């Protein structure tokens, strides 16, 4: 309970620090410095309160709180704040906070969607390596995330929204897609909280034919509860209960047969909802402002040197890369070897960590040896972040494996 309050407090403080950052832009240079400073202190305060929340949870559960998706995401959000503070200490550019802090907030909010009950560690997780591997991986990824924030800022700063040429249009579209992805994520969070808050429920029972150990076909029934109105119901399922939504009393269609498992249908439903609401939101915004969203955000960036942004993005990635390699790959393997005897099993999560690593390796080679600076480098930092997000979220939700956490 205490933890919950603290959590809310730190959330609010994060929010304020974001606002603090936003304010800093409308004013002149000295004001920028002043508000930027305030924003920084609020961020530090937020970090401290979040850290104490983490500490409390640690004491309550007896283990470091990074063992399920909720815990990890909130921890990751905290790391992003930390990474931002470090980068700020080096470069003293408060504007980065404008993007890095909301990123942290969104990540923490996203984490809050998932079940937050304290659960005991399964035996395989009872090791000191849990602490080291996950925390370092989160820290490394946090720096890479700040690199993304700076890279995206660079694009917003430099992409010419009036450019009608083919490559110009591609850039504009790219920026828009990234913004749409962010809006969809926010839509998802809002959806879950609102429907959950309103107490919405729908239930289905799915009948699956499985083979048991003797090779005989057995009918298995599984129940699933939806907290978002079902547009799509699980394959071969029967409606037990559904609260009507907008006059809809039945799901619109059924999940295809190859989506096995009772949860697949629910996840598909969640994805459809998020995409739909995200696109509708974006569409509304476009209708109102009549220009690409990026074009509206872009003027905020005027006044910051894009070379600096490029440099910051690179530096953040350069700091994050070795930490990520150490935490997500090396320590992960050492731990896997100790727990399961296999330091590398091509588990989807492991493989995606490798994919992330390969990507940033390519990034560094292209930047350092082939002179890919500026725009190209910025786009790579965006794609890299998408890969990280997929590793953290997509793999857990879509692909099953050793690493899966509970889903929504």
């Amino acid at each position, binding site marked *: 309970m205490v933890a919950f309050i603290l959590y809310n407090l730190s959330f609010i403080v994060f929010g304020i620090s974001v606002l603090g950052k936003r304010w800093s832009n409308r004013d002149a240079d000295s004001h920028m410095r002043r508000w930027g400073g305030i924003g920084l202190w609020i961020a530090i305060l937020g970090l401290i309160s979040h850290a104490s929340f983490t500490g409390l949870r640690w004491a309550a559960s007896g283990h470091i709180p990074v063992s399920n998706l909720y815990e990890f995401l909130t921890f990751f959000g905290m790391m992003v704040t930390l990474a931002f503070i470090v980068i700020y200490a080096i470069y003293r550019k408060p504007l980065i906070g404008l993007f890095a802090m909301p990123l942290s907030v969104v990540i923490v909010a996203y984490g809050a969607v998932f079940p937050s009950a304290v659960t*005991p560690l399964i035996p*395989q997780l009872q090791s000191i390596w849990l602490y080291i591997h996950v925390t370092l991986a989160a820290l490394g990824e946090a720096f890479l995330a700040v690199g993304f924030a700076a890279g995206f800022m660079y694009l917003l700063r430099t992409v010419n929204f009036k450019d009608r040429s083919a490559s110009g249009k591609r850039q504009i579209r790219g920026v828009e897609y990234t913004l749409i992805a962010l809006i969809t994520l926010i839509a998802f969070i809002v959806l879950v909280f609102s429907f959950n808050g309103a107490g919405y429920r729908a239930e289905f029972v799915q009948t699956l034919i499985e083979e048991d150990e003797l090779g005989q076909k057995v009918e298995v029934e599984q129940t699933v509860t939806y907290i978002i109105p079902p547009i799509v119901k699980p394959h071969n399922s029967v409606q037990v209960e559904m609260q009507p939504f907008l006059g809809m009393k039945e799901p619109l269609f059924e999940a295809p047969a*190859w989506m096995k498992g009772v949860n697949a249908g629910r996840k598909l439903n969640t994805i459809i909802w998020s995409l739909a609401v995200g696109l509708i939101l974006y569409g509304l915004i476009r209708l109102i402002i009549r220009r690409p969203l990026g074009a509206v955000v872009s003027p905020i960036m005027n006044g910051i040197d894009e070379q600096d942004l490029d440099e910051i993005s690179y530096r953040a990635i*350069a700091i994050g890369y070795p930490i990520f390699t150490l935490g997500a790959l*090396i320590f992960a393997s050492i731990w896997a070897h100790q727990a399961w005897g296999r330091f590398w099993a*091509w588990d989807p999560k492991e*493989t995606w960590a490798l994919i992330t690593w390969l990507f940033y390796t390519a990034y560094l080679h292209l930047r350092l040896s*082939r002179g890919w600076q500026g725009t190209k480098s910025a786009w790579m930092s965006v794609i890299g972040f998408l890969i990280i997000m997929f590793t953290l979220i997509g793999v857990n939700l879509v692909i099953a494996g050793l690493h899966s956490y509970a889903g929504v």
Partner: protein
Amino acid sequence: MKPSAGLVVFKQGGALALLTNTKCECGHQNPVGTVLCEACGLPVQQEVAESDGLLEMRYEGAARRSQKSNPKLLDRIWNFFSSVKVAVYLIIITLLLSILGTLLPQVNVVPSYDPASYYAEEYGKLGELYYSLGLADTFGSWWYKGLVLMIAASLIICSLDRIIPLYKALKKQQPVKHETFLKRQKVLYIGEVADAESWLKEAEEAIRERRYQVTREGTSLLGEKNRFSRWGPYINHVGLIILLAALLTRGLPGWYMEQGFSVNEGQTVSIPGTNYYLKNLKFTEVKEVGPHVSGQELQFAFETDAILYRCVADCNNPFAEPQLEEVLQHKIRPNEPLKYDGYSIYQIDYAFSPQATIMTLNVLRDGQPIGELVLNLTDPAPAYQLGDVSVELTGYYPELTSVDGVPATKSRLPNNPAFILDMTLADGTTEQYFVVPFQQYQTRISGAEDSEPLTFEIGGMEASFYSSYLMVKVERALPYVLAGALIFLFGVVIGLYWQHRRIWVRIDGSRLIVAAHTNKNWYGLRDELAKILDKTGIEIDAKSLDNSGVGKS
């Protein structure tokens, strides 16, 4: 400033070689392919000499193997692997294929012995296609391994191609640089000084303060720091090569092994692939409940208390018990494997499956016990002796059932054991009994009609409640893999977190030229140079040192 070509004959370790060299204005002989003179830095390659943009400072403008003209097949292969562009392509292709390998579960986790039909059944057309393309075993496939091999080749050849000329060039470098070289650097300051010597003294002090190593020659000065950071990429490549080579050694006999096996409580099994046996003394589930948070379960673990044995005789004979010698005892838990002789045994999983293991039957005649039969329900002995009665076990059905009225067994698990016992009594008469202890059923099939039949009662029973799933593993390559990984990390850190910086000073009369170069973080270099110049009385803004406006080459 045209380079003059000279035909020179060299004697190299006994072999004769013909070489054309390029001789620089300053008198130094450069190998063919050199871009910037090794001594004074003057551009000697024609195209570079005739343009006027920033100088390409990679590898100090030294001649590289892969830049040779007129490449033969061997050279073409070398050039291919030495190219960074190719390396990036290889990395990206590996990345994309790895993504494909995560779309569907791979064969090693699929719960089926017939993968081909499993994929088709579970995932339909997509699954069929996935399997037929070989993606179901992406990471073990020959093309994936081939890609990794190509990356290894690229690592080796890229590094060799560059590090040797770079090392030589950095070793040989001199403080005196040609004007053109300096004027085409990315960081440049040109100014005037009144007294060369006194300025140089101040400059040297200011530069040394910032931890540069300073060498002087006449009125030229070279300040250099953190050269070690240049070796970073090559060290990290070496680390990766070691890692990949270590992985390769897994193919050597005795270097890698992985076998899963299961042991019931009380059971001793042969550890597959080894000469060892493992006994499961007891399996325990551990549950600890915490004081906080409403009595929630805080800790859950499981362990097998195991004894490791070594077989010393009769190891492969199904008719004799292997002779075992105890080696050690260990409680195997997840994260705490049993380690011995290069083998590690891990606790992977378990199942709650109660099963009787040993049954003791008391044999009574007229209510009086005449002995007991201790029956091993997995593999019972065929003969027993009860005082003066000899017993032969001629039939055993672990899980009795009846098929067309004839006794048969449903499985190999002793869920309902039934025995056919041939008893030979002291007086030579024989009797045959059929006993089903769990069903409390026994009957005398044949024997003396006039005497009371013997009775059989369950006297005792041992059971196993848990089946423990373990895995035995040999992974001799592991320390080398780790070493490779750590060397990689070390290389990355020294390459990324430090920068190699050099400052050149050249004074001709009263004209001062200061140029500087770094492999990364120009921002910081300009800042630092501005601070140094400040100390010598020259106040300028760091940004003005940026010379990149000079027509990009």
